[in-house]
């Protein structure tokens, strides 16, 4: 009976790892594949390699936390392990089928918390640290993104150029008996440097994904001693790699696609920031979501860059509650005719953030819309409005909450 449960546990762990590989490869290598620096197969191979390095080194700390920290390792009975992994797998399954965001790390931790609550063994102090990190890390991502977007991005954009390549930069030479990687000979030095940068950062993201995610697949099994730490890492990375080579082909087109909508420079910045946040947290033994930190950095970067025409004093002015929505329509009508800004921005414009900085003339005020309708001003606020942001934050919070509640009920009844 017990051995059967262990086998089930291993299978569910493999399923979790497989789905992590599918979704993380897209996030990490989306830009590299999208700009045709590497093919999908090469991306999967590099992702697996660096995820392994990340899991083998920094990832141990996260496995420690999740296998013998949040709850004592003794709590991971074979039944409990399968239960915890089941919730993680379920969240991933729903997330991958419907393309709905669900953080693997947050869901896995949520399931362990449910177990801890049901058995009264939760390390509340540690959970407090972890949840604090979940709040602080995205805020840091947003802040760094906003600062770069507002002050640094135009300068970086002027100095670095990234193009799309006709042939993959790194290709696998299949002419010989053993496939060998080789460089594309028709690329210029500038292309090479840019492409190398994209690739290095993708590998770094793979490293951080491995460091943070290996624990989600195997921590309960390592906790109850069914497998050792090293076996666990090999199982996690093996299945993550399998997912990278198979279902990542599809997720590269969906999840990865969202990040490839960005200009390459922007994708690089958010990858670098996201991966650094996750690597640091993993080193500290804190499981956290790569996608959440990266997304917050994307919003920060876009918002910071789009707000460049407003002064900080204007930005600091809060939108009066309830007024923002209705003012948008009247505000846009007021701003469309050129030259009206000379009288100074109206309070309504300030409130919706639509005002141009007084020191800077409006950029091309005469640009007509595609049609003849008075064009609405495109602003940071129209693109990242608080209601939609709140909705997405709720979605991100939902999966760990459901996981805590579900696993608490399950374990309260079962144990």
């Amino acid at each position, binding site marked *: 009976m017990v051995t059967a449960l262990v086998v089930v546990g291993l299978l569910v762990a493999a399923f979790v790892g497989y789905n992590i590989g599918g979704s993380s490869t897209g996030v990490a290598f989306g830009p590299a594949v999208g700009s045709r620096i590497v093919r999908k197969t090469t991306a999967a191979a590099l992702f697996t390699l660096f995820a392994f390095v990340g899991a083998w080194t920094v990832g141990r700390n996260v496995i420690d936390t999740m296998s013998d920290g949040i709850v004592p390792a003794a709590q991971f009975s074979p039944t409990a392990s399968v239960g915890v992994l089941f919730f993680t797998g379920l969240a991933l399954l729903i997330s991958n089928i*419907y*393309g*709905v*965001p669900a953080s693997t790390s947050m869901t896995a931790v949520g399931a362990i918390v449910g177990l801890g609550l049901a058995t009264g063994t939760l390390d509340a102090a540690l959970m407090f640290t972890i949840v604090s990190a979940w709040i602080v890390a995205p805020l840091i991502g947003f802040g760094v993104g906003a600062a770069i*977007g507002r002050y640094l*991005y135009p300068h970086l954009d002027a100095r670095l150029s990234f193009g799309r390549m006709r042939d993959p930069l790194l290709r696998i030479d299949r002419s010989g008996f053993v496939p060998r990687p080789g460089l594309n000979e028709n690329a210029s030095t500038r292309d090479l440097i840019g492409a190398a940068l994209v690739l290095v950062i993708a590998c770094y993201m793979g490293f951080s994904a491995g460091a943070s995610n290996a624990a989600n697949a195997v921590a309960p099994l390592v906790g109850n001693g069914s497998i050792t730490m090293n076996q666990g890492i090999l199982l996690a990375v093996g299945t993550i790699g399998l997912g990278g080579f198979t279902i990542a082909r599809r997720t590269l087109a969906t*999840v990865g*696609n*969202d*990040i*490839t*909508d*960005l*200009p390459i420079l*922007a994708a690089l910045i958010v990858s670098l920031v996201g991966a650094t946040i996750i690597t640091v947290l993993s080193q500290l033994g804190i499981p956290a979501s790569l*996608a959440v930190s*990266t*997304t917050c950095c*994307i*919003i920060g*970067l*876009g*918002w910071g*860059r*789009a707000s460049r025409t407003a002064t900080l004093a204007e930005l600091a002015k809060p939108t009066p509650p309830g007024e923002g*929505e209705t003012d*948008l*329509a009247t505000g*846009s009508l007021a701003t469309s005719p050129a030259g009206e800004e000379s009288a100074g921005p109206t309070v309504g414009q300030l409130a919706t953030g639509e005002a141009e900085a007084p020191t800077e003339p409006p*950029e*091309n005020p005469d*640009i007509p*819309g*595609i*049609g*003849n*309708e008075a*064009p*609405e*001003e*495109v*602003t*940071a606020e*129209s*693109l*990242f*409005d608080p*209601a*939609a*942001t709140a*909705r*997405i934050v709720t*979605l991100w919070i939902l999966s760990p909450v459901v996981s805590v509640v579900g696993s608490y009920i399950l374990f309260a009844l079962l144990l």
Partner: protein
Amino acid sequence: MDVLVPMDDSEMAEHALEYALDVFDDAEITVLTVVGEPSIMWGEAAAIAIADDMQEAAEEHGQTVADRAGEIAADHDTEVDVSVRTGHPSRAILDAAEDYDTIVLGSHGGSVADRLMVGNVAETVFRRAPVPVTVVR
């Protein structure tokens, strides 16, 4: 008579435009497409926000729908105006709505993820629009 036809890149939206062209054949039809809508990682919204000229970037993102709308109108031997707005689809449509006599739109376009992210656009427009709304199924 001024008719607003909000469109995304879905087939349902194309049906809505065809319906509007058939039924309101002597009306001024304006196609509205909303770009940079909220998505899982906000890729498109951020891409527009980062561009040097946000208005131009928004129009580039709306070009596919604009081209398709032009083709459909050409099939009906007529022309349509295309306007591009940014941000949340239902809010952008409702902001534009009061300048028109009626709205014609497809019942749904997006995936489950889109629906969670931005809600059911047709339903929101139907409930809140200040003018009559035709939902094409």
